[in-house]
């Protein structure tokens, strides 16, 4: 038998100490109790939904390429293929299994999908590009420990065709810091009309990893992936790197994986630099999501030349609020920087639908 006959390496005291140390990693009883009490009163899962749109509780579909309009605008045709591969790897979300349907507290409602630019109510006194950029950079750094929640809605010919909901915490991780991410992706079922069918929840993934130093990006890091691949929309499975999760199942993998930078882009710091370098111009003042905001339009020297791109920055927090690419086929991103409260962090957990078996 393995180990017999060798010089003893450990004692029973070592074993006791190790088990005791392991036990100290136990989760909080409060979390478990909350879930148990909710389970008693909860009958039906309540998924996040867009205003006016009923989201299905169950099925989702295959991962389609999550190429957004802005990616198409930003890169050439040859680069699109590479971007697709990158994005296919990038999609995923965060931590563990919850005890049942709908365990998430409400987040702020996303704004109407790809709704047109809000009305500019008054020109106001514009800050200089330099001061705005400085304020944004300061705010971005100050929000580094927050949970950032991002919604992305893709509209083609006036119809919503894909949605992404992602959560990342901390919003700006330091090298060596664990970052928890979750990504919930919905799309139109295969074979359904892209002009009339509603999007359906397709996959929900969590991705927890350790942030490497920027100089060593591209290396592999210890990570945990949990993937729920929804059935019922024609997909056969959901891929993440070398892991494939069959539709109608969930999987969990802990391994050393190629690092994926999950921090939402464009980062606030990047936007601040672009503003400072004249790639955006202030076009007015408005209110958005209850906050005073500055509306900016990208100049022709910006990243997405040739396509109208608008950005709204809160003048209460100096954090970005919304960005819209394109007039007709559009992508609308909304950013929400939230305090890392227990309720907000609960969104990082991926709920496992009842009856879904674990497949890996």
């Amino acid at each position, binding site marked *: 038998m393995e180990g017999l006959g060798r010089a003893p*390496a450990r*004692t029973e005291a070592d074993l006791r100490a190790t088990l005791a140390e392991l036990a100290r*990693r*136990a989760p909080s009883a409060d979390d478990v109790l909350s879930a148990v009490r909710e389970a008693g009163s909860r009958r039906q899962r309540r998924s996040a939904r867009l205003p006016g749109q009923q989201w299905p509780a169950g099925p989702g579909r295959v991962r389609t390429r999550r190429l957004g309009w802005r990616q198409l605008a930003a890169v050439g045709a040859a680069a699109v293929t590479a971007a697709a591969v990158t994005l296919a790897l990038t999609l995923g979300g965060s931590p563990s299994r919850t005890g049942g349907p709908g365990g998430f507290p409400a987040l702020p409602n996303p704004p109407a999908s790809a709704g047109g630019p809000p009305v500019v109510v008054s020109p106001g006194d514009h800050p200089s590009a330099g001061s705005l950029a400085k304020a944004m950079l300061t705010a971005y750094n100050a929000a580094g420990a927050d949970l950032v929640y991002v919604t992305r809605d893709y509209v083609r010919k006036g119809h919503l065709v894909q949605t992404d909901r992602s959560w990342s915490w901390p919003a700006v991780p330091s090298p060596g810091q*664990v970052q928890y991410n979750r990504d919930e992706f919905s799309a139109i079922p295969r074979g359904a009309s892209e002009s009339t069918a509603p999007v359906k929840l397709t996959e929900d993934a969590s991705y927890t990893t350790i942030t490497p130093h920027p100089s060593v990006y591209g290396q592999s890091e210890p990570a945990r992936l949990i993937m729920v691949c929804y059935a019922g929309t024609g997909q056969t499975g959901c891929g993440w790197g070398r892991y494939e999760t069959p539709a109608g199942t969930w999987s969990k993998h*802990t391994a050393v994986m190629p690092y994926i930078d999950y921090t939402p882009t464009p980062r606030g710091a990047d936007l601040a630099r672009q503003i400072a370098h004249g790639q955006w111009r202030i076009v007015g003042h408005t209110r958005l999501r209850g906050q005073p905001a500055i509306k900016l339009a990208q100049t022709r020297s910006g990243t997405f030349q040739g396509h109208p791109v608008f950005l709204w920055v809160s003048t209460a927090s100096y954090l970005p609020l919304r960005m819209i690419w394109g007039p007709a086929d559009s992508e609308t991103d909304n950013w929400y920087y939230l305090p890392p409260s227990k309720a907000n962090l609960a969104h990082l957990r991926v709920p496992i639908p009842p009856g879904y078996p674990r497949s890996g």
Partner: protein
Amino acid sequence: MTFDQFAGARLQAVLRFATALTGDPDLAKDLVQEVLIRVNGQWQKVGQLDRPEAYIRKMVVNEYLSWRRRSWRLIPSGMSSHVTGRPSPDPADGYIERQALLAELAKLSRRQRTALVLRYYEGYSDAEIAEVMGCTRSTVRGHVFKALAALRVELDQPLPTPAPSKETH
């Protein structure tokens, strides 16, 4: 004892036990949560037991051993399943050794691991372990014997050699 009284006094201990059992805080949470959801519905009976906590621990063990044949051994060797921090080199030999032992614990069969945790974390006797696991004392000793050998743990006092067991893991 009401459910709330039990939860306030003993739930954290049950969670610690489940974490030692599974090696994964998230899975431990799931396990205990599922057990408690069931227990909560029949607390009138469970609360009248002499040792409700022992009953619940037994449920946790049963859940762990039988839960839908899920693979609990996906954890790659050499790392815990719970990412708790950057695995930077640590000069403390004890820390490194404990990490290695944790990785080897994760490779044990569920029954071997259960027997070890009940014995070395809970301090149960062979008879108590046998009662919780629903097997004979001889089988318990077999699990412990094989697990300790795999982990290369030196016994303070030698175990009696277990009788051959027909049970499978």
